[in-house]
C-alpha cells in the first residue's frame, strides 16, 4: 500500500466520524496551545525582568550600608548598633579604583513639593550629574544636574515628567521656582518619560544635588551608591575594590556590594524554573489528550471490526492494518498539534496586545516540545488500539453484526 493511499484512507476514516475527530483534535490543540501560551507568558515575564534590570544601567554595582549576612549573636546586636552610614567622602573614594568608571551616590527621602497653590508629596532623589549616565535616564527638557563639585548644595532640581505636568501643566517649567520642604529650588530640567522600572517611577520624582538633599533631610548618609564598572570584565574587580576601599575607610567590612549580574542571574533562574513548572503542568493536559486519543482509537477499532475483517479478507496483512490505525492517530494528533500551535500563537498575540509591556513569546524549545509531546503521546497511545485491530480474527470480525 502506498504512503499517499495510507494517508488518504486514514483521513477518510477520520472524516467518517467527524465530530469525534474534531473533538479529539480540539483536546489536543488546547493542550498544545496551553503549553505554548503558558511558556510564552513565563518567558515573557523573564525577559521583562531582564529588560527592566538592564534599563537600570549596565555593568552596575550597588553599594549599600550594612552587611547582609547572618552573623549570630554578636556585640553589635547587644548594643542595638545600626550599620555605619556611607558618606559622600566614601563614595568619592571609590573613584580611586581603576576598575570603576563612574559613580552616582543616592540619597532618598520624601518631601512636600509645592508651586503656588499646588502641592503634593514627592520622592526626592539626591545625586550627582553622573546619575543620568549611570542610571540610563534621559532628559526631556533643559539640563540635568550640573557637573562639578559634588559637595555644593545648589538649589536646582530636575523634575520627573509626570510631576512637571501636575505642577506646571503645559507651561514652561524651566527657570521656575518650586518649594521643597523649607527650601526653594529652581527647575533646570525635566526628565523624559520613562515609566516605571523595578517599582520605581522616575516620572514622579524630583532630583536635586546630593548635598542639597543632605541639607533638606538633615543627614549625611547615603542610601545607595550606584557604581558603574568600566567594562563587563571588570565588574568583579570593581566589587572587590569597592569592598576593600570602604572597609579600609570604615575599619571593618560593614557594607554590602551586589552586582546587577548576580541579581539578574537569580531572577533569571527563578523565572526559568517557573516557566518550566508551568510548561510541565500544561504538558499534563497533553498526556490527557493522549489518553483521549487512545479512547477514540479503541472506539474506532470496535466500531469498525467488520471493516477490519473485510480489509483482511481483501488481502491486507496485519502490519498494514496496524499502519492504517497508526496513520489515523498521527493525523489526529498532528492536525491537533498544528491547530494548537496556531491557537497558541493567537493567544500569545492577544496577550501581547493586552499587556504591551510584557514581551510574551514562547521559546522555540517549548514550541518544539509541545509539538513533539503531542505527536509522541498520539502515537504512543495508539499502539495498543492499532495492535488490537491488527490482531482481530477476520472470520469473527466479518461475522460481527
Amino acid at each position, binding site marked *: *500500500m*502506498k504512503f499517499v493511499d495510507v494517508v488518504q484512507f486514514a483521513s477518510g476514516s477520520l472524516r467518517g466520524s467527524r465530530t469525534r475527530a474534531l473533538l479529539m483534535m480540539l483536546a489536543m490543540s488546547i493542550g498544545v496551545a496551553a503549553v505554548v501560551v503558558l511558556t510564552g507568558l513565563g518567558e515573557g515575564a523573564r525577559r521583562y525582568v531582564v529588560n527592566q534590570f538592564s534599563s537600570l544601567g549596565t555593568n552596575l554595582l550597588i553599594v549599600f550600608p550594612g552587611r547582609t549576612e547572618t552573623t549570630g549573636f554578636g556585640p553589635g546586636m547587644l548594643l542595638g548598633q545600626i550599620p555605619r552610614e556611607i558618606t559622600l567622602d566614601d563614595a568619592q573614594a571609590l573613584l580611586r579604583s581603576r576598575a570603576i568608571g563612574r559613580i552616582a551616590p543616592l540619597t532618598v527621602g520624601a518631601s512636600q513639593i509645592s508651586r503656588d497653590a499646588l502641592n503634593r508629596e514627592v520622592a526626592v532623589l539626591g545625586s550627582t550629574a553622573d546619575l543620568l549616565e549611570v542610571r540610563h535616564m534621559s532628559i526631556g527638557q533643559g539640563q540635568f544636574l550640573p557637573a562639578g563639585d559634588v559637595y555644593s548644595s545648589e538649589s536646582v532640581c530636575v523634575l520627573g515628567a509626570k510631576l512637571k505636568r501636575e505642577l506646571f501643566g503645559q507651561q514652561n517649567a524651566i527657570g521656575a521656582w518650586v518649594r521643597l520642604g523649607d527650601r526653594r529650588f529652581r527647575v533646570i530640567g525635566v526628565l523624559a518619560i520613562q515609566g516605571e522600572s523595578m517599582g520605581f517611577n522616575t516620572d514622579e520624582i524630583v532630583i536635586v544635588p546630593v548635598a542639597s538633599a543632605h541639607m533638606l533631610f538633615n543627614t549625611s548618609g547615603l542610601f545607595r551608591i550606584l557604581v558603574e564598572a568600566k567594562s563587563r570584565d571588570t565588574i568583579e574587580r570593581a566589587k572587590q575594590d569597592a569592598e576593600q576601599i570602604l572597609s579600609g575607610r570604615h575599619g571593618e567590612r560593614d557594607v554590602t556590594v551586589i552586582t546587577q549580574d548576580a541579581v539578574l542571574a537569580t531572577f533569571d533562574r527563578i523565572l526559568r524554573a517557573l516557566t518550566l513548572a508551568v510548561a510541565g503542568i500544561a504538558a499534563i493536559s497533553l498526556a490527557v489528550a493522549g489518553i483521549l486519543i487512545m479512547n477514540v482509537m479503541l472506539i474506532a477499532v470496535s466500531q469498525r471490526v467488520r471493516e477490519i*475483517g473485510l480489509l*483482511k*479478507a481483501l*488481502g491486507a496483512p496485519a502490519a498494514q492494518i496496524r499502519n492504517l490505525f497508526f496513520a489515523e492517530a498521527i493525523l489526529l494528533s498532528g492536525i491537533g498539534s498544528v491547530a494548537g500551535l496556531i491557537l497558541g500563537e493567537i493567544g500569545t498575540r492577544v496577550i501581547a496586545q493586552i499587556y504591551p509591556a510584557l514581551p510574551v513569546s514562547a521559546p522555540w524549545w517549548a514550541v518544539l516540545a509541545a509539538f513533539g509531546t503531542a505527536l509522541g503521546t498520539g502515537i504512543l497511545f495508539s499502539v495498543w488500539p492499532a495492535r488490537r485491530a491488527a490482531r482481530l480474527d477476520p472470520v*469473527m470480525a*466479518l461475522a460481527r*453484526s
Partner: protein
Amino acid sequence: MIRLENVSRIFAVGDQQVAALRGIDLNIAAGDYVSIMGPSGSGKSTLLNLIGLLDRPSSGTYRLDGGDVTDLSDEQQAKVRSEKVGFVFQAFHLVPRLTAAMNIELPLILAGIPADERKARVEELMENYGLTDRADHRPDQLSGGQRQRVAIARATSMRPTVLLADEPTGNLDQATGKEVMNLLEQLVAQQVTLIVVTHDPIIGGRAARQVRMVDGQITGETGQFVGRAMPAETERRAEPDLR
C-alpha cells in the same frame, strides 16, 4: 487447483472441543463451478473460510495452485488472499463511508497498485457491472442488487483465480438473486474457479458440481445424497456461535 486432504477444523468452546469440519477430502479443478450446500451449522462456511485462507485447518493439508498453504504465516496468507482469492459475502460488506468506485478500488489500493492503473481497472469494472452512473454513490444509496454488484466487482478487481461466495443471494429477492448468480457464472466462463456456499437448493442446483455437507462432513456430490440420519442436537452443536 484446490486440494484438501483429510482436513479438520476444531474449535475450542469453553473447555469443549467442537469439530466444525471432520476429515474433509475435496479436489476442485481450475475453472470449476462448485456449490456447497447443507443445513446451517454443517460447516460449509468454515470450509469456505479455510479455502479462502481466512482460517487454518486444525489438521490435514491444503494445497492451492500446487503449493502447500496449510501452514502459511498470517502475512503470507494475506498475500495469497490478495492475489488469488476474491470474496463475495451475504451481507455485502461494503465500507459505508466509501463510494461504490472507492469500494471497488479498495483491494487495488491495499495491494499498492499505481493510481492510474487503478482508475482504469475500476472504470472497466464499473462498466462491466453497469455501475458507471452509480460510481459516486455510497452503499446506503444503492439497492441490494447494486450493492452485491459492487461487491462482485470488488472481488474480481485483483483478477483472482478463485471466487468464494458465501450465500451471495441471501439478502436479495429472487429476481435480483438470479441476476447476481448470472454475473458470478459469467466469471466461470473466464476460467475463474467459483465456489458458492448456500442452503438454497435452487441456487446450489445451478452449479455444475454440487457438494452436500452435514455435520462437518461431505455427504455427497452432484445430487447423489449419501444420507445419514442426524440427530438435531448434533447439528446445532456442529458450528459454534462465535459471536
